[in-house]
């Protein structure tokens, strides 16, 4: 039996709210962060809307030194450092002294591709024969592990500092990696999360695959429709979510605020076999992942009262609901409350899992189930599986006790984590 692991800090940089307070308000009120992007129109994108965090310049100055800001052209690093630093402060952890790192503090912070705007800038310089003009930070801003490197250096972490990458599963996978490391006694606390750059060079490939909605350019807030009969594709997003995972004993020792406990989880892959492919999930793998997560969390399937789905707003949403029903052996009125935050933030790709996990943990703090938007026309296949009352349109007062959160990604990869309310021993 490993150490118990709890969540003691949260940070977020989401399309509908930068910082925990704004993000909480936005989820509670169903405020959309999906906006028209004129640069996508200028570049002839079919889908000209996206979710992008609105980060003010003077806010950035609080997180980066003037030197770090020089030539910084990697939105993922900005989002990740904001969210990561906030989570660290929220946990009440200090920045290591100048001379010695904190050997018990780690960073596991994932991304898909980092610093793509910097990479573009560098490619142009190189192609013009001006490689010497790249400066000293083009490598740091474009290496995938740039985000964990920036955070590890800012905070002074001396334990494992790494970056994981598994497409849209990245953020949820990172939480499980941090959980396993702390549970095994190899670190006291780990900053985990993920970030995803903004912009046409990130979203273009998805537009080319014709899997983004093109009919909502004039009404962006209605474009992302998880679980709706009229869902036609996911809206691309960006941002970062971050949390501090910590051993219960360390949290107790520090007197830290405990938001929730990580009870367990599982990761797997469908191997791109059966109905699984590079871009489509193998349902058997999804179900096995959920079943394994429930089992190794030591909870009964019947005890799960809330689910935050992956639910991207494509025609595949009913398949995901079916998989939850089969894996948990629950349906109709016996199904837990389920929501998807993608209706208001879009699909934040590598950052999706971490931003949505932060939102999920906030439901424990606020005693709410945040409402779903844009699914008044519930997909009939979903309505046949789950009582519509279990898919709230408005935020509900409710005390979640056990929540399941899953993320699925290109490459046929899955991750499911089980969070539990932390109760002080009597």
């Amino acid at each position, binding site marked *: 039996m490993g150490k118990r692991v709890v969540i003691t800090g949260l940070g977020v940089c989401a399309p509908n709210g930068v910082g925990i307070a704004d993000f909480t308000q936005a989820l509670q009120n169903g405020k959309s962060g999906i906006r028209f992007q004129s640069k996508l129109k200028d570049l002839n994108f079919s889908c000209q809307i996206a979710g992008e965090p609105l980060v003010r310049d003077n806010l950035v100055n609080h997180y980066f030194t003037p030197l770090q800001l020089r030539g910084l052209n990697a939105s993922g690093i900005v989002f990740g450092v904001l969210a990561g630093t906030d989570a660290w402060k929220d946990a009440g952890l200090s920045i290591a002294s100048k001379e010695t790192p904190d050997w018990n503090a780690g960073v596991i912070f994932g991304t898909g591709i980092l610093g793509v705007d910097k990479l573009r800038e560098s490619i142009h310089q190189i192609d013009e024969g001006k490689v010497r003009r790249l*400066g*000293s930070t083009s490598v740091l801003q474009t290496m995938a592990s740039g985000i964990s490197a920036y955070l590890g250096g800012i905070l002074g972490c001396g334990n494992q500092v790494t970056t994981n990458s598994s497409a849209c599963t990245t953020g949820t996978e990172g939480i499980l990696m941090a959980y396993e490391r702390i549970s095994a006694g190899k670190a006291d606390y780990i900053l985990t999360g993920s970030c995803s750059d903004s912009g046409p060079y990130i979203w273009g490939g998805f537009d080319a695959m014709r899997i983004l909605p093109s009919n909502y350019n004039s009404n962006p807030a209605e474009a992302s429709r998880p679980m709706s009969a009229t869902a036609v594709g996911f809206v691309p997003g960006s941002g970062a979510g971050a949390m501090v995972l910590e051993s219960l004993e360390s949290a107790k020792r520090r007197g830290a605020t405990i938001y929730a406990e990580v009870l367990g989880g599982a990761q797997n892959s469908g191997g791109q076999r059966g109905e699984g492919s590079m871009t489509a999930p193998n349902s058997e793998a999804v179900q096995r992942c959920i079943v394994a997560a429930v089992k190794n969390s030591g909870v009964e399937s019947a005890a799960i009262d809330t689910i935050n789905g992956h639910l991207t707003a494509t025609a595949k949403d009913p398949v995901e609901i079916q998989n939850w029903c089969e894996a948990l052996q629950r349906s109709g009125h016996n199904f837990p409350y389920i929501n998807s935050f993608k209706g208001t933030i879009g699909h934040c790709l590598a950052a999706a899992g971490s931003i949505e996990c932060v939102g999920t943990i906030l439901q424990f703090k606020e005693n709410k189930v945040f409402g779903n938007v844009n699914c008044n026309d519930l997909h009939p296949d979903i309505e046949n599986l789950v009582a519509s009352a279990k898919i709230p349109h408005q935020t509900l007062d409710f005390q979640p006790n056990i929540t399941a959160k899953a993320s699925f990604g290109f490459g046929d990869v899955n991750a499911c984590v089980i969070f539990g309310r932390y109760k002080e021993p009597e």
Partner: protein
Amino acid sequence: MTKEERYQKLRAIIQVYLPEDVSVDNITMESHFINELNINSANLVDIVLDVEDAFDIMLENDDMDSMQTVTDALSIIDAKLGNS
């Protein structure tokens, strides 16, 4: 541009690269970038690029290697501008 103006322009460039515990007042003509001002050696290439942009000159690899102190940098700038 006078020598003093060139010096002030260079100081403004260097200032950005100083670590937090080194103040701009520490910069003198004799300051060694790495040993005295504690500038990260990786940032010397950035200082060179900033100097090129600010003075509209181009430095060679040899110039970069010999640019160890503020005085070195000013001499190289002067030479490129044809002032020496």
